[in-house]
Each structure stands twice: as C-alpha cells, then as structure tokens.
C-alpha cells in the first residue's frame, strides 16, 4: 500500500493536494497479473431470479461461468411418503400441491395411473375426460403465462410480466368458478371428477378464449420481434437434440431442438387423439425457440379448449361403479360447499345402508388390486410420469412422480457453463422449473 494517498504541491495559494485513485492502479495491475480469478458464487436459495428456492452454485471467471451446479431440496415436503398414509382418493389433494402451477396435470396423471390399476379406464365417462382435457389445456395456458411473465421480468421486461399475470388471472378466475380454488384444486378424482361444471362456466370460458385471442398477439408485438429481447434470448441456454435425449429433457426444451415429441400425440390419453391441434417445434435449441414454442402452444391450447366446449354433452362425470365413486352430491350451502340436502336426507333419514356405504367409502376408501402402473401426461414442462404401486390395500403402497422440472433442471449445467452470468437467468427461466415439482 502506498502511504500517501494524495500528492501535495506548493502553489502561491498554499498547498494543493491532488486526490487520485489511491492504490487502485496497483490493485488493478495485481488483478490483471493473477490468473486465478475464479470465485464461487451462491445464487439463491433466496433469490428473486431463481424461480423459488433454487440454489445455483456458480464458479465464475470474470463474467464467464466455468461451472454451474444446482442445489435443490429446499422445498421437499415428503408428499410421496405422505400419500402412503392416505386413501387413494385423498391422494389427489396431495399431488395437486407438487408442481403447484400444473395442478391439473398432477391430478390427471395420478388418476390415470390409479384408474389403470383399477382397470376402469374404459368406464370413465366422456364428459369427465373432456373436462379433464379442458382443464389441462387451461392449465397449460396459465403455466406458460407464468413462465413467459417471470422470464420477461427477469430480463427487466416488466410489461411482459404485467401482461402474463393479467391473463393468468383470467384463467385462475375460471378455476375458482369450477373448483372453488385458484390453486390446489383436488378436483380430478380417481374415476372422474369431484363434481360437474357449475352453471355459467362454459360461457365464461368462451369469453376467455375470445379475450385471449385478442391478448396473445400482444406478446408477439411486445417481444417476438423485439431486438433487445431477441439479443438476450437467442443462442442462450443452448441444448441440442443429443443433449436433450441424454439428459432426459422433454417438453418445450426437447421441441426447441426440433423433435416434435408430444405425449398427447404419441401416447394419447383422455381422448387427445380425437382433438385437432399441432405440435410446434423450433430448430434453434435456445431460449428464444422455447419462448416461441410456448407462445404457439398457448394458441393450440385455445383451439383444444374450443373443441372441448363444443363437445360437452350432459352426462355423468364419475364412473357408475358405486364402490369407487363417492356418493357425494355436492351442493353449495350457506356455510360453503357440502353434501346436498337431498343426499343428507337420504343417508340420515331413510337408508341406513346408504349411510354405511357412504361412511365406509369415505373413511376406509376403496381397495385397488395389487400391481403397478405407469401413466404419463404431457405437462407444460414435459413428460410427467406417475408410477403407482398397490398392495391391494386402501392406500397407495408407493407413488413416485417423475416430475419434468426435476429432470429438466439437470440440463442447467449444460446450458450455462461457458456462458455469461447474466445468461444463467435466461437459461434457467427457459427450463421453467417449479421447485414444488422438483422437490416434491
């Protein structure tokens, strides 16, 4: 360190000190000479840009990321273990909370697996399947909107964030009307649905589709051709097809590498083979391609939603098998949602057997024949696989979720290493991980 921080000079006015940068020149010179400039930076787990409690451990050399690793587990809630202590029906209440932005996909995946174990896939009423598709596509919209909104915000594009959350709110209003809740619905149950659509739901969804058709082009106008947006997104988070296959990445990441793999087309469920829609792809393998794919998928979702609405015919929304279907006839009472008065009158007043049946089915639950099943749905993030094992009891023996966020997040290192620190944010945003799903 130099002892003198300012040089003195005598003038006719007295002593004049020239204050300079002190020893900074020295510091800079030393820094330039040293070749070991690597530092390890912890980003998260409490960081606004890491999509929840994700911890990124970055080794950086100047502005370049030389190594990137993820630390996860901060949101582990033991849902898979908890499921083993509840009935099969209660399971939906838990799985809906895994990836909380794709609730209906979690519920559908679980129910499809349980229905496969029960061997009742063919007995699910059409109306229930159509409403499942309808809700899943609405959910795809709301999930992609959050992805684009938060992704934009992390770039500093707050207008996109406002637009995204504005439109998501419309979807959440529909959820609230149909299921009573904005999140964590537990609406799709093994065998069908908890209850039918309420009056006015179809009209509100039609209104929403109309509004979204008007709103979606705004994202195009705002972002798609925007040079700043493109400069931040293009070529960032690069992962080609070989990388995707090796790392098991699915969903928009895989499709941005040009492979039109979509379980809705490849292994259709809930009658997806009868709907008319396209699977968008890109060949850029980067964040920008994934953004375009998500935007296009939202348009395709609107198409599917319209087809669902056109197909809805009155009918049951639960299997006819009364050993699986809850006897509940839900109705809105003065103190919230509950069993209808007619049903209460029957079980409390006229039929003791009905009461026993109701009590047994709700407290004990139904038994599922032993064996295992795997059901996969195309969630907004990729292949959501559900592995369910039964030992013939009234509770799941084991439920395992192959959450796409968990698998896709592994690709973070491959996407970020060698890039700049600022691009880590863009790459992670394009993976669209939701920690509730990653950690479960």
């Amino acid at each position, binding site marked *: 360190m130099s002892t003198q921080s300012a040089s003195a000079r005598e003038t006719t006015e007295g002593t004049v000190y020239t204050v300079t940068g002190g020893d900074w020149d020295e510091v800079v010179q030393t820094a330039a000479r040293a070749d070991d400039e690597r530092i390890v930076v912890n980003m998260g787990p409490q960081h606004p840009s890491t999509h929840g409690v994700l911890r990124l451990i970055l080794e950086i050399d100047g502005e370049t990321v030389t190594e990137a690793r993820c630390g*996860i*587990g901060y949101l*582990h809630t*033991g849902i*898979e*273990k*908890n499921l*083993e*202590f*509840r009935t099969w029906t209660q399971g939906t209440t838990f799985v809906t909370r895994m990836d909380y932005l794709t609730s209906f996909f979690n519920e559908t995946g679980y129910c499809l697996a349980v229905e*496969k*174990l*029960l*061997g009742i896939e063919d007995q699910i009423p059409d109306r229930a399947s159509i409403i499942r598709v309808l809700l899943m596509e609405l959910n795809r919209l709301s999930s992609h909107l959050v992805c684009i909104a938060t992704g934009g915000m992390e770039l500093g594009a707050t207008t996109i964030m406002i637009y995204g959350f504005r439109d998501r709110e419309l979807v959440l209003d529909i959820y609230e009307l149909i299921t009573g809740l904005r999140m964590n619905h537990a609406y799709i149950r093994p065998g069908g649905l908890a209850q039918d659509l309420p009056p006015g739901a179809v009209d509100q969804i039609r209104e929403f589709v109309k509004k979204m058709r008007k709103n979606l082009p705004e994202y195009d106008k705002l972002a798609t051709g925007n040079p700043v947006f493109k400069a931040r997104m293009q070529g960032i988070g690069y992962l080609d097809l070989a990388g995707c*296959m*090796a*790392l*098991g*990445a*699915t969903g928009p990441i895989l499709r941005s590498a040009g*492979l039109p*793999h979509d379980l809705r087309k*490849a*292994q259709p469920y809930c009658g997806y083979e009868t709907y008319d829609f396209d699977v968008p792809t890109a060949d850029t393998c980067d964040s920008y391609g994934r953004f375009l794919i998500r935007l296009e998928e939202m348009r395709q979702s609107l198409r599917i939603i319209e087809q669902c609405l056109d197909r809805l015919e009155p009918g049951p929304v639960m299997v006819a098998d*009364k*050993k699986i279907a809850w*006897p509940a006839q839900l109705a809105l009472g003065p103190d919230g949602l509950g069993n209808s008065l007619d049903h209460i009158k*029957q079980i409390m007043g006229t*039929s003791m*057997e*009905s009461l*026993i*049946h109701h009590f047994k089915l709700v407290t*004990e*639950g*139904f*038994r*599922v*024949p*032993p*064996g*295992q099943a*795997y059901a*996969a749905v195309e969630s907004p993030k990729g*292949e959501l*696989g559900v*592995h369910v*094992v039964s*030992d*013939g*009891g*009234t*509770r799941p*023996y*084991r439920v*395992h979720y*192959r959450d796409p966020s*968990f*698998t896709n997040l*592994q690709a973070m290192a491959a996407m970020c290493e060698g890039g700049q620190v600022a691009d880590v944010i863009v790459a992670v945003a394009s993976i669209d991980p939701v920690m509730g799903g990653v950690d479960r």
Partner: protein
Amino acid sequence: MSDANGNGVNPEKDLGTDNLPGQRGEGGEEIRVQRGMFGASNGGDTSGYGGLVRSVRLPGPATRPYGGWFDEVADELEGALEEQGLVPENVIEKTVVDRDEITFHIEREHLVRVAQTLRDDPALRFELCTGVSGVHYPGDKGRELHAVYHLRSITHNRLIRLEVSAPDGDPHIPSLVSVYPTNDWHERETYDFFGIVFDGHPALTRIMMPDDWQGFPQRKDYPLGGIPVEYKGAQIPAPDQRRSYS
C-alpha cells in the same frame, strides 16, 4: 343401477368373491402376509378381524405369447443378449405382463449391459429413460429393495419397465448414469430415500434431505412422523397412527 335400497349395493351381483377387489387368488408372487385389520396389533381389537390372514400377491411371470409388440421387444432383447454371449434366462429373471405393461425383471449384475442394449439396438432403441423409482418390500425376503426404470422409445413409440431388486443387507445396484446421464439426479433421489447404493454413480450424495440426515425416509420402516391435532374437542392422531384398513 338396479339397487333397490338406493345405496348402490346390489347383493346378488356385488357380494360374490369374484367381485372382491384387492384379491389375486393364488397366482402371482407373494410379497407379504398381512395379519389382522385396522392396524390393531396389540389387544383392544374387538372387531373380530384380528385373525384375518391375507397374502399380498403381485402379478406373477407371464408366459408367451405376451401379446402385441411385447413379443417383438422380448425376442429382440433375448437375441441381442445371446449375441453378446449371455444366456437370456440368466439375465432376465422373469417377465411380467400386467395391465398392458411389460416388466422385465433383470438380474442386477447385468443391468448396465441390458440398458445399453435396449438403448443402442436399432430394433429396440429405448433412447429416453424416465428415471428410477424405488420401492421397498420389507416382506419380500432377499429382494427387499426394488429399483424400477421406465424406458421410452420415441423411435418405436413404446414403453417398457425394468425392475431390479437388491437385498436389504447388500443394497447395491449398478448405476445407469453411464448409459442414461439423466439418471444422475434420479439415482441420487432413490439413494436419498431408499438407501439403494448405485455403484458407479459419479457423485452419489443426498439430494433432497440435508447431507447429514440419518436414515432413508421412504423405507417402510421409517415412520412418517407427525403430531396429534385437536379438532372440535377431539384428538386426531398423527397420520401414521390412524386406523389402517389395508
């Protein structure tokens, strides 16, 4: 529904033994014997169900033909294994076909070779592994820990399941990370929750639980935990202390 009582139960149709769910007759593989009901094991059970004995059986091995494309995959796999100088019967312990899904039970020492074959053989080409799911069967002596893999072929649009078992005393299964790098985190997760040691994994550490955690939480002998909750004057026991009907 033709139920006269309006309770959804039709005595003639519903109460036959064929119609009892959760039963698999004498076939299949026994994995456990369940005694009693309601989870009451130490006195106090006046239900009369305390003496119930039920054997829990999972679907057993299937015989040829398996049906559909299952035979094609099985033939190709056996052929490819023979080409590598392996005896398929020594590699594939059994093949189970249940609920339109095919499961190959693989001897653990051959797992990597089988996975490599399934991935690389053009006629098989299972290029996508959807990770591993652990299952703990404490009653299945000598094969307590199972690792279940689902492999997807995008080329041929197929899905198969591989199942590998290891005894509790020697919980080692070879790692598939060299064949399917995506299994990196999945194997760490299964190690974390079940204590299955995947030999050859580049860094087998805990992923969800804290690094210094004791025990493997998703094993069946690991308690769920929880505290009793008071609700409208009544004590509701913790979830794992509640009456079980299984």
